[in-house]
Every structure is written in structure tokens, then in C-alpha cells.
């Protein structure tokens, strides 16, 4: 069908264009129904083990999945009437915000605190009222800094920072709540500084920013590409065609995605960029078309000959790219599968357009303008000349060139093991950004914004009232606090010790665990009678079968969580627990699992995709040797980029793993074009060296054009405010330039060394050519 299509298209070009636009409009009609899902958490389904267990833990302890931390800092100390008034007022106002769990907002004015006052046991907010005398202020300072449950959690040890913990209702948007809080604090005057941090802030800010920036940068990249294309082909219509094909493919894929009821996830929001990258492959068609136009007087014949020549490589690159993305569907992560499927679909749409829409446009563009523009096209012109020089070097000194490749490979392989698989969403923002600064300040001044739960389970009811169990939990807490990244731990033990002290005349040395289980039980009951039920419930279940150890971390690094959990395991090995089991939960643990599952899954499927691409290359050339040779530019590019990541010390995180998939679509194209065209050439000119040099200079020019064009367009992303976009930009530039260079520089040498005497199916290609009556023997 694909053979007939171009003929049909050049015969009825207007109808073809009309049909393409009509079909696009049908797909685009679905777009208004688009639902977006900006939550990276949904990369793991709600039914995944970690999310199910986290929900279970939330139920046991009445916890909330998401929490915002508002840090308030005053350099001269917080023990100041005006400052405390601000904290109090701000808490009152935050409680009223939509999306906030009003009852569980924790600050110095709401947190339960157990104190003894003149023989009366009192559970009251740490700061029930603003102290109005210097003495009262001093008493408050003493009460705060004397209470281990408060220091570093609610108030910093130096008394300069305090935190308001703001839990969110399920489904509330962290960015929206954070924005409202920022509005509230902007209305405060005085010498206080405010910082809004926490996982939901970073996550939802990133989610919405990502969509926003995609909406800015994808069109900008498209526009730049348009300008560059015009510079190359000096014909606006043709330049528009390439960008138009990318847009049509995007609309078809997105439309279909929406039509089958899928939400547009972060991953699929990247589709326009990917499809634009893949669509640039059409440059090869135009490149060849301009050469042909100078050689063949009849436009119709020039178009058909172009398609016939470029058709095979274009088909195979499409197949390889589509297969590469299609393989993403074997992974376990649903949004990645959706992304893989629809990008593969988009790739096929682009190819369909290459054989229909593009030849049709070539027929419709005014011929005199085309001929005038194509006059500049010559193999002796600047770019082609330097390419020819490069090719000569590679053909004449194949061994030296190959050795340089081996050296590069070795360098890459040394760097590769240094890659750290780690994800830290806060680092997706630039160092000076509001999100990142807030996180840094809170981590520096207070216990930390990242929250890990460690659930201790005993053998039955009341197990966690046993003093032996509590002592073990306490010892484990002290051990975990040795870890650099751990800023603060809080458990029911702290509470029991506190009540014990207050019951026994508030003597500091009584801050210890009582000796009997009954006493612990009565303390907890007593506390429950006086405090908000939630305060007790977040630390221990009603049955006392489980207790919750809060571990605040000073970083969102998934690696840090791993470190803490390893330490806990080591501790348990050295000190066997008295019938207790420890299980991690909470957002920090979720991030670790997410990191493991999503990233590992991506790496697994990516490697599989590479293997599939290799098989397809081999099959398309019907030779392992040619398959391997054509795989070299892709393989070397990928290894080199990841090797460099290892050297630079940049984490292999989510954005980088997404980008890996991009290389599937790009780097392999160049090699396919190069080898296909070389072998076609060989049918006309049996001399290997001459054929190689021709390939470097003519299709090679298309390859370099493709690479430069795309690098240029995506250089705009380097100016993004989100680091993953900067990564995308840098990655694309590196990938395009390296793989293009490797293709024109290494392939000639490798062909000379390994594939010169390999029986090619060049004759078959020539044969296929004669089947087409239009082309006949018309090769130059």
C-alpha cells in the first residue's frame, strides 16, 4: 500500500492534503475533553503494594498522605510577642483554607503539649495565648526548649525557626494550597521570613509547571525549527510541511489518547517534543528531493524518485522507532505504557504522512520557486565539502578511527557504573527557586521536610505498651538519629516519657519509660482523655498493637531513605527486637519505591527496546554484521551520554530515564539512512570508497542538517526554570550531534573494516528499483 500511496498522492495532491487535514480535525475534535493528571505519584497505580500499605498506615494512625510544611524564621529569635502573634494569626488563617485538614494543622498554637502547672496536669497547646509579659515569654521559651517532642519538630533548637504542618485533604492540589499560603504570608509585615515546602508543593508545582513549560517550549522549538528549515530549504511551504507533519502526528496521537479515555499524564505531555523529533526525519526526503530536482527535469518524476530512494530507509527508521517505543508497553508502569503506545502510533502517522502528505505538498508548491531554491543545493557546497573531508579521513584510516571509537567506549564504560539511580523532586527546581530555597531552609533550621514513617508492629493487642518494646523503639530511634540525613524522630515513647515526667512532679530525670505495662496503658489513656485524639492516634493505634515512628529527613533523596532503612535493618540484626516488626511507609518511602520501580522498570524496558532495535536492524539488513555496524552510532551515543552522567555525578532520575526513550527514536535513524543509501549507491557505483564518500556528502548532509536543526530548536529549553527541561535540552543536543557525527565518522570506517566484503542485498535493492516503472534506471 505504501508503494501505491505516493503515486496516488502526486496524482491528486489537493485531495490528499484535504484528507490529511480532515482526518487531523477528527482527532483534534477530541482534545477539548482532555483530562490531565499532573501527579507523578500516579506512575504507580493506586493498587500498587506501596500505595495500598501507605493507605493502610494512614488509616491506622489517622494520617494524611500529603503535608505542607510552612517554615517561619526570625533571625533575632521567635520569642517575641509580635512574631508569635503572626504565627498564631497565620495558623488561624491556614486552618480556614480549602483543601486543608483543619483539625490536624499543627503549630505551636495547636500542638498538644503535656505540662504540669502547680500540681495540675495540663494538656494544652504549646502556646495557648500570646505571652504579654517578659516573664511569660521567658517561661514559654523554657517550656519549648525543655521539651524534646517540640525541639526541631515545631521550634528549632536555637529558637529562630518554627514550623506549621499543614496536612492536605485527599485530592487537594499542593501548589494551589501553597499559593494561598504564600498570599497569606505576603500580607504579613515585620521581620519574619516564610518558607513553604513539602512534597505536595514540589510535586504539584512541578506537575503544573511541566504542562505550562511544555506549552511554551514545544511551540517555541517548533517555531525555531521552522526558521532553521526555511534557512536550509529557502521555501516556507516545505518548512511548514515538516512542522505541520509533527503537529498532525501530535494531534492524532493526543486525540486518540483522549478518545479512549486516558488522562494526559506528565509522560504523555512530552509526546509533542518526541514526535517533533521524529518528524525531522522527513528532512531526508526534502534533502534528496532538492538534489533530484536539479537532476530530473520533471517534477512528478523527481518526487516519485525521491520517495522511491528514501522510502526504504524511511520505512525502516519508522519501524525501528515505532518498535522501540512499542517495547515500552511491556513495562509495568501504566503511564509509560500509554506513552510508548501513542508515541509509536504517532511515529506511524508521521510515516504515513511521509508517503502521502509530503509528496502531495511537493506537487503543490510553486515549481519555479522550488527550482530557484534547490539551485543552492550542491555536493560541492560548504557543508558537503567538510563532510567529504571527514568521510575521506574515515575511509582512508579506518583502523585509527575504529581505535578512537574503542577509546571512547572504554571511557564511557568506566563512567557508567558511577551513575547513581536517585530521584529527588525538589532538585527538579533550580537552586534559587522558591521551592528549593524553602526546602533548604526548613531542612537546615528544623528536623526536615521529608517524612518517613516506620511502623512497629507487635504480636498482639497492647504489645506496644510493653516497656521492653518501648525501650527497643527508643534505642532504634537513637540509632537512626546517628544518620546524617535524619533530622528528628518522634514516637509514642517520647510521649510516654513526657507524661511520666509530668506525673512525677515534672522532674527532668523522670523523663523515662515506666517499668510496668499497666502504667504505660494508663498514661496513654490519661493523655487520650486530655489531648486531641489525633495527637495520640498518629503515634499509636487504639489497640496498641502498632506504633508509628516519625522520621524526618533533611533531604528528599530516595537514596537517603534507603540509607536509613539499611541502618534500621543492620540495627535489628545486631539487636534482635523483642517480637517487633518494622515496616516503612509514608511519602519518603513511597518516593523510594517509586524510584526503584519506575526507574528500574524504565531501564529494563529501555534495554529491551535497544535489543529489539538491534534485531530489527539485523532483520532489515538481513545480516548480523550490518545490524551491529548500524547499531554502533546509537549504542556509542547512549553509552557516552550515560558515561558522562556518571562522571558529572548527575543522578539518573525520572527526566533522564524518560529521555533515554528519546534516543530510540533518533539516533538509530541516522545509521539506517546512511547504510541504506550507501547500499543503494553501491548498486550504481561498485567502488566502495567512492560510494561511501558520496554517502557521507549527500545523505550525510541530510543527517547533519537533521541534527543541527533539532539541536538548535531544543536549545531554547536550556532557558527553562525546571532542571529536567534543561536536561532535556542538553540531552537532545548531545544526542543529536553525537549520533550524527558518529554516523558519518565511524560508519565509513566500520564498513571498510567489517562489511566491505559482506554480500549485500544491493542487487536486490537495484532490482526493486527497476520494478517501479517510474524510476526505471534513473539513478545518478
Amino acid at each position, binding site marked *: 500500500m505504501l508503494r501505491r500511496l505516493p503515486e496516488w498522492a502526486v496524482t491528486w495532491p489537493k485531495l490528499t492534503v484535504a484528507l490529511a487535514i480532515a482526518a487531523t480535525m477528527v482527532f483534534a475534535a477530541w482534545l477539548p475533553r482532555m483530562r490531565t493528571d499532573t501527579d507523578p505519584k500516579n506512575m504507580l497505580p493506586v493498587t500498587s503494594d506501596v500505595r495500598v500499605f501507605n493507605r493502610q498506615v494512614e488509616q491506622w494512625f489517622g494520617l494524611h498522605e500529603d503535608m505542607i510544611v510552612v517554615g517561619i524564621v526570625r533571625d533575632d529569635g521567635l520569642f517575641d510577642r509580635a512574631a508569635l502573634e503572626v504565627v498564631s494569626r497565620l495558623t488561624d488563617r491556614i486552618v480556614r483554607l480549602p483543601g486543608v*485538614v483543619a483539625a490536624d494543622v499543627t503549630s505551636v498554637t495547636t500542638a498538644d503539649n503535656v505540662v504540669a502547672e502547680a500540681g495540675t496536669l495540663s494538656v494544652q497547646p504549646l502556646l495557648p495565648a500570646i505571652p504579654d509579659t517578659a516573664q511569660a515569654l521567658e517561661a514559654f521559651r523554657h517550656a519549648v526548649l525543655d521539651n524534646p517532642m517540640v525541639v526541631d519538630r515545631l521550634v528549632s533548637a536555637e529558637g529562630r525557626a518554627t514550623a506549621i504542618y499543614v496536612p492536605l485533604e485527599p485530592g487537594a492540589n499542593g501548589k494551589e494550597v501553597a499559593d494561598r499560603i504564600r498570599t497569606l504570608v505576603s500580607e504579613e509585615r515585620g521581620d519574619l521570613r516564610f518558607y513553604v515546602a513539602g512534597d505536595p508543593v514540589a510535586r504539584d508545582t512541578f506537575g503544573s509547571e511541566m504542562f505550562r513549560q511544555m506549552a511554551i517550549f514545544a511551540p517555541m522549538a517548533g517555531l525555531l525549527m521552522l526558521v532553521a528549515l526555511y534557512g536550509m530549504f529557502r521555501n516556507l511551504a516545505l518548512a511548514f510541511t515538516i512542522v505541520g507533519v509533527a503537529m498532525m502526528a501530535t494531534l492524532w496521537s493526543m486525540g486518540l489518547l483522549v478518545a479512549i479515555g486516558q488522562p494526559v499524564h506528565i509522560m504523555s505531555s512530552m509526546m509533542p517534543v518526541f514526535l517533533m523529533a521524529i518528524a525531522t526525519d522527513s528532512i531526508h526526503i526534502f534533502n534528496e528531493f532538492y538534489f533530484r530536482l536539479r537532476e530530473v527535469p520533471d517534477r512528478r518524476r523527481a518526487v516519485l524518485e525521491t520517495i522511491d530512494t528514501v522510502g526504504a530507509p524511511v520505512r525502516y527508521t519508522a519501524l525501528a522507532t515505532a518498535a522501540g517505543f512499542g517495547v515500552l508497553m511491556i513495562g509495568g508502569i501504566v503511564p509509560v505504557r500509554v506513552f510508548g503506545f501513542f508515541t509509536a502510533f504517532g511515529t506511524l502517522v508521521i510515516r504515513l504522512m511521509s508517503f502521502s502528505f509530503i509528496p502531495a505538498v511537493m506537487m503543490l508548491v510553486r515549481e519555479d520557486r522550488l527550482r530557484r531554491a534547490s539551485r543552492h543545493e550542491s555536493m560541492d557546497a560548504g557543508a558537503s565539502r567538510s563532510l567529504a573531508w571527514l568521510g575521506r579521513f574515515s575511509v582512508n584510516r579506518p583502523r585509527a578511527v575504529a581505535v578512537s571509537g574503542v577509546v571512547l567506549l572504554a571511557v564511557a564504560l568506566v563512567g557508567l557504573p558511577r551513575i547513581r539511580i536517585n530521584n529527588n523532586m525538589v532538585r527538579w527546581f533550580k537552586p534559587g527557586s522558591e521551592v528549593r530555597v524553602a526546602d533548604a531552609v526548613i531542612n537546615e533550621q528544623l528536623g526536615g521536610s521529608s517524612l518517613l514513617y516506620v511502623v512497629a508492629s507487635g504480636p498482639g493487642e497492647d504489645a506496644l505498651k510493653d516497656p521492653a518494646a518501648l525501650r527497643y523503639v527508643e534505642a532504634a530511634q537513637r540509632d537512626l538519629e546517628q544518620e546524617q540525613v535524619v533530622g528528628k524522630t518522634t514516637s509514642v515513647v517520647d510521649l510516654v516519657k513526657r507524661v511520666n515526667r509530668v506525673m512525677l512532679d515534672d522532674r527532668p530525670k523522670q523523663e523515662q519509660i515506666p517499668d510496668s505495662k499497666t*502504667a504505660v*496503658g494508663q498514661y496513654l489513656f490519661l493523655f487520650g482523655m486530655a489531648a486531641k485524639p489525633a495527637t495520640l492516634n498518629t503515634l499509636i493505634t487504639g489497640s496498641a498493637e502498632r506504633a508509628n515512628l516519625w522520621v524526618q529527613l533533611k533531604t528528599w533523596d530516595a537514596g537517603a531513605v534507603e540509607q536509613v532503612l539499611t541502618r534500621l535493618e543492620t540495627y535489628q540484626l545486631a539487636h534482635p527486637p523483642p517480637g517487633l516488626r518494622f515496616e516503612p511507609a509514608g511519602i519518603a518511602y513511597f518516593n523510594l519505591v517509586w524510584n526503584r520501580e519506575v526507574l528500574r522498570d524504565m531501564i529494563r524496558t529501555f534495554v529491551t527496546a535497544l535489543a529489539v532495535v538491534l534485531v530489527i536492524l539485523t532483520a532489515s539488513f538481513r545480516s548480523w554484521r550490518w545490524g551491529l555496524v548500524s547499531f554502533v552510532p546509537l549504542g556509542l551515543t547512549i553509552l557516552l551520554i550515560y558515561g558522562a552522567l556518571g562522571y558529572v555525578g548527575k543522578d539518573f532520575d525520572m527526566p533522564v530515564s524518560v529521555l533515554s526513550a528519546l534516543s530510540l527514536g533518533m539516533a538509530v535513524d541516522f545509521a539506517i539512512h546512511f547504510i541504506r543509501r550507501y547500499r543503494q549507491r553501491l548498486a550504481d557505483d561498485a567502488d566502495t570508497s567512492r560510494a561511501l564518500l558520496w554517502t557521507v556528502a549527500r545523505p550525510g548532509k541530510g543527517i547533519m542538517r537533521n541534527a543541527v536543526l533539532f539541536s538548535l530548536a531544543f536549545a531554547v529549553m536550556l532557558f527553562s526554570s525546571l532542571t529536567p527541561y534543561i536536561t532535556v535540552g542538553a540531552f537532545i543536543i548531545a544526542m543529536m550531534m553525537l549520533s550524527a557525527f558518529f554516523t558519518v565518522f565511524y560508519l565509513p570506517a566500520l564498513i571498510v573494516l567489517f562489511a566491505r566484503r559482506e554480500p549485500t542485498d544491493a542487487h536486490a535493492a537495484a532490482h526493486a528499483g527497476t520494478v517501479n516503472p517510474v524510476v526505471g534506471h534513473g539513478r545518478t
Partner: protein
Amino acid sequence: MRVRLVLCLIGLALSWPALPEGPRRLLAQAPPGANDIVARVQQAFYAPGKDMKARVTMTLLSTGGDKRLRDLTMLRRNGTGGEQQYFIYFHQPGDVRGMTFLVLKYPRRDDDRWLFVPALNLVRRLAARDSAQSFVGSDFTYEHVSGRDLESDRHTLRGEEQRRGKACYVVESQAQEAAEYSRKVAWIDKATWLPVDEEYYDVRGELFKVFTADEVRDVSGHPTITKRTMKNVKTNHRTDVVFADVAYDVGIEAEIFSERYLREPPRRWIQ
């Protein structure tokens, strides 16, 4: 002075339409009935008889299916001028068996509360923190158990309605003093002066707690809610309460409500 007054009036006039329900609330002046209704409810709900004894079982049900039991004997005695005394003895949970709790309630003043902790053989005075405080970890607050000062809310009669087959007054109470709610709507049974349903709204005006009287029995001429439920609709936590062996005017002695009896609970009243 006069200028300020005029400015105030102008300000009020300008902001009048902007106030949510402001005009309606002020124009629909609380009919003289609202406060009377609430006063009668207080009497029927929290203070019938000269004294009362009951075995109270509270079942705390969490969303996760966790079930906790609070089993206690409650003794109440009405003092003079609206004062009340409560003596509570805990039978369950097991590790607090023998714990006793004394509450002396005064109108328009904080309660006095004492607790006996058997494990330490110690009586400790507890500060009454605030009215929103949970009663033994349940969804009921202390105020739900012993009542709230009439003057702490502004009461408005919202109308009359059939509610679960009973002719009811609908009374809305806006918190004027600290409370766990900002607004409460109660359906009061005209026949018994007991609430049939109550809805509690939080600071954001969102419904968060619902009270239902599930069973009302006549005990010695006093209609008594013997089964009640408080459900937190935001957390889905729920507390079911059953009042059993309710008896009024049994002659509970005044001296029982003292520290001595906290340590040695009166066997006569507590089995």
C-alpha cells in the same frame, strides 16, 4: 465621636449586602423562643432528676475497622445554681480498670477535674483545656457529655420540621465562645425536648460531625437517649454510645464526689 459613629454607620450600610446572610440574619430577629428551647433541651438532656446513675458503653470505630471499647459507670448529681458533679469509674479497657475521674462543673467557669491513676496510686488534677476536648478519645467532647453554657452560642430558631417522624424545632447555634464548631444545627423533638439530630459545621462552614439519637426510652418519667451516635463525616470515625441501667433519683450522696472516693470507689454504686 459623632463623626466616628457616622463613619461606622456608613461602613455598616456599605458592607451590609456583602455580609453572607447578614441582612437576613439580622432582619429575622431570633424569636423569643430560641433561647427558651435550648434551655429546655439543656434540662432534658443533661440534668433530668436530682441525680442519675448509668452504665455507659462507648464503642469507638475507626475507618480502618479498629474497634475500641470504653466501659464505664457514670454517676451524676445536680448541685445548686446549675452546678453538677460527675463521678466516672472505668471498667474497660482492661489496663485502666479502676481508674476514676471526677468532674465538678460550674456554670460560666472552667470545670474542675481530678483523675486517679491506679498504677501510680496517685490523684492528679487535670486542667480543663478547652471545650472542644474529646471525651476519653471518642468523637464526643466533654460538652457533649455534660452540656455547654447557653450563653456560649447565639441561638436562632430556623423553623419547624418533621425529622424522622417527629415534629421538631430547628435551632441553629452560632458559637460565640471557643468551640469545636462554628455552627451547629439541631432538630429538637417537641415532645421530649431532646435532640433527634445535630449537625456540626467547622470553621470553613463544612459539615464535619453528625449526632443522632438512635433510641429514646422513658426512664421514671424522664425521656432518655439510651443509644446515640456521633460520626465524624470527614474522618469517618464514629462513636456509638449505649446507656444501660439508667436510674434517676437514686439518692447518690454528695460526699462521693471527692478525692477520697476517687481512691476508694463507692461499691454501692459501682458493680
